[in-house]
C-alpha cells in the first residue's frame, strides 16, 4: 500500500542532500573539533560553516547560534539559562498556555526553584494577545516565552507586538520557533526576540541537532557544563554529522523557502476547505495566519487515536492531541488552553504536510478521511449529541 505521510510535525524525512552532506563525517572525517591537528580542524571548520548556514536561515550572526541536541534542550536552556542569569533582577516569568511541554515543564521547574510563573491565556483561534502580555508584566518579570507557532494548531503568534510591549519594560523575550524555523521566514532582527529555539528535524534535517539563538551580549547560564565547546555555553563532544546536516538543511530551506510555501499552502487549503464542509468538523487555530502545511481539526463525537489508526490502516499517517494518542494520556493542553471543550479536544487530528506530498496524496486523504469519520461516528454513543456529557466529566483513571 502506498504511504501518505502527513505527520511532518512529528518527524521529517531527511533531505537526500542533507544526508549526503553528513556522510563524510560518518566516515573519514571522524575527528573531534577540539583536536588541533588536521582531523580536528576540518571538523571544526565544518561546524563553523554549519553555524553560518543556520545563522543565515534566521538572519543572525554565526556567533549567536549555540548548537544543542534537540528543540527541547534549546527550550530548557533558554528558560532556565536566562532565569538563572537574571534572577537578581526579578523572579517572574511569563509563558503562554500553548507552549510545548519542554517550555511548560521547564516553567514548572522554575516554579519549584522559587520563581513565579504566569501562564498567558490563548484565544479561541490560538493567539496570545499582546495587550494581555502587557497587563501581566510585573516589575519582577525578567523573561517572556511565547512560541512562534504551536505545532498542534499552527497559528503564527504576533511575536513582534509581544516583543514591543516587552521591550518597553526591558524584558528578555524567548520564542520557541521549532515549528517555524525553516518553514516560514524567520528573521530574529525583525522579530526582535532575544532568544529563539529551533530543531533541524522540522526542516528535513537530522534528528539530534537543534540550536538556540542567543542575541549577542546576552548572558545565559549553561544547561550542560563541561568543556569549551560552543564557547563554553554548551559542553559535550559535538555531534559533527548532525550539525553539518542541520547546516545543509538550513541552507536548502533558505533557498527553497518561498517555493516550499507556495507548494504547500494550496494543498493545506484544500484540506481545510474540504474538511470543514463535513458536519461538525472544526478547524483549530487561525485560518490565515498559520503554518503553510498545517491543517488541524477537532472532529466531534469521536476520538483522535481511533481516527489515526483507521487512517494508518489506509496508509495515511497523521497526529492527534487526544489523550489516548499522546502516550501521556492527557488531552492536549494547547487545545484546552484555546477553550475547546475536553470532549471535543479528544477528537483532535493534525495533518502536517511536507514537500514529498503530492496533490494526489491529498485527493486520497480527502476521499478516505470522511469515510473514517462516518465509520467511527456509527460506533460512537454520542453521534446524536453529547447529552448530559456535553461539558465532559471528571477524568479519573483508576489504578
Amino acid at each position: 500500500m502506498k504511504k501518505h505521510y502527513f505527520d511532518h510535525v512529528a518527524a521529517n524525512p531527511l533531505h537526500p542532500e542533507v544526508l549526503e552532506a553528513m556522510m563524510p563525517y560518518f566516515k573519514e572525517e571522524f575527528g573531534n573539533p577540539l583536536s588541533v591537528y588536521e582531523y580536528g580542524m576540518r571538523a571544526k571548520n565544518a561546524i563553523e560553516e554549519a553555524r553560518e548556514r543556520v545563522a543565515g536561515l534566521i538572519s543572525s550572526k554565526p556567533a549567536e547560534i549555540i548548537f544543542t541536541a534537540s528543540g527541547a534542550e534549546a527550550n530548557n536552556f533558554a528558560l532556565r539559562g536566562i532565569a538563572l542569569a537574571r534572577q537578581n533582577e526579578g523572579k517572574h516569568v511569563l509563558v503562554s498556555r500553548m507552549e510545548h511541554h519542554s517550555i511548560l515543564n521547564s516553567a514548572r521547574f522554575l516554579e519549584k526553584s522559587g520563581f513565579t510563573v504566569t501562564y498567558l491565556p490563548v484565544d479561541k483561534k490560538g493567539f496570545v494577545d499582546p495587550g494581555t502580555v502587557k497587563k501581566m508584566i510585573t516589575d519582577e518579570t525578567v523573561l517572556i516565552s511565547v512560541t512562534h507557532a504551536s505545532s498542534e494548531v499552527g497559528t503564527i503568534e504576533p511575536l513582534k507586538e509581544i516583543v514591543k510591549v516587552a521591550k518597553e519594560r526591558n524584558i528578555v523575550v524567548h520564542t520557541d520557533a521549532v515549528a517555524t524555523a525553516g518553514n516560514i521566514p524567520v528573521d530574529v532582527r525583525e522579530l526582535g526576540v532575544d532568544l529563539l529555539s529551533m530543531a533541524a528535524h522540522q526542516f528535513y534535517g537530522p534528528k539530534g541537532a537543534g540550536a538556540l539563538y542567543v542575541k549577542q551580549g546576552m548572558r545565559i547560564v549553561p544547561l550542560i557544563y563541561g568543556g569549551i565547546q560552543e564557547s563554553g555555553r554548551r559542553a559535550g563532544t559535538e555531534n559533527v554529522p548532525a550539525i553539518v546536516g542541520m547546516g545543509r538543511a538550513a541552507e536548502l530551506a533558505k533557498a527553497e523557502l518561498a517555493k516550499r510555501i507556495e507548494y504547500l499552502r494550496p494543498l493545506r487549503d484544500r484540506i481545510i476547505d474540504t474538511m470543514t464542509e463535513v458536519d461538525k468538523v472544526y478547524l483549530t487555530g487561525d485560518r490565515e495566519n498559520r503554518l503553510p502545511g498545517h491543517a488541524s481539526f477537532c472532529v466531534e463525537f469521536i476520538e483522535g487515536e481511533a481516527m489515526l489508526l483507521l487512517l494508518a490502516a489506509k496508509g495515511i499517517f497523521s497526529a492527534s492531541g487526544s489523550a489516548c494518542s499522546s502516550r501521556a494520556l492527557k488531552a492536549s493542553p494547547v487545545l484546552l488552553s484555546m477553550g475547546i471543550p475536553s470532549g471535543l479536544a479528544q477528537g483532535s487530528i493534525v495533518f502536517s504536510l511536507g514537500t514529498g506530498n503530492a496533490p494526489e496524496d491529498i485527493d486520497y486523504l480527502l476521499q478516505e478521511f470522511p469515510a473514517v469519520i462516518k465509520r467511527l461516528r456509527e460506533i460512537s454513543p454520542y453521534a446524536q449529541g453529547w447529552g448530559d456529557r456535553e461539558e465532559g466529566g471528571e477524568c479519573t483513571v483508576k489504578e
Partner: protein
Amino acid sequence: MYSERVMDHFTNPRNVGDMEDADGIGTEGNPTCGDAMKIYIRVKDGKIVDAKFKTFGCGAAIAVSSMVTEMVKGKTLDEALAISKEAVAAELGGLPPQKMHCSNLGADALKKAIEDYRSKQKA
C-alpha cells in the same frame, strides 16, 4: 503497539449498535478522559443472549467493547460478572500497559448493564 487481535476487533468491531428495548444498559467512562462506552444486554433465562455496544474512544476502547460483547454471549449473569479487565485484555492478546486501565472499561460497563438489569427486575 496493539496486538493483531486488538487491531482486528478495532477495525472490524463485532456487535456495534444500539439495542431497542435492551434488558440492561451500562455506561462507563466519559469523553473528557477520551473513553466512554455503553453496553446493552438482552437476557433470557438468566443468560445473556445478546449484547451490543457503542463506544467513544481509542482503538483499545473499541476493541475491548467488541471483545466483551462477544465474551458475554451465552454466559449466565454471574459468569458474566466474573469477567475481569485482565480476562478481556488476555482474550485480546494483551493491551499496552498505559491502556490497561483507562481504555479497558468494558468489564465495568458490562457490570453496570447487569446491575441495571437486576435493579429493573426487582422493581
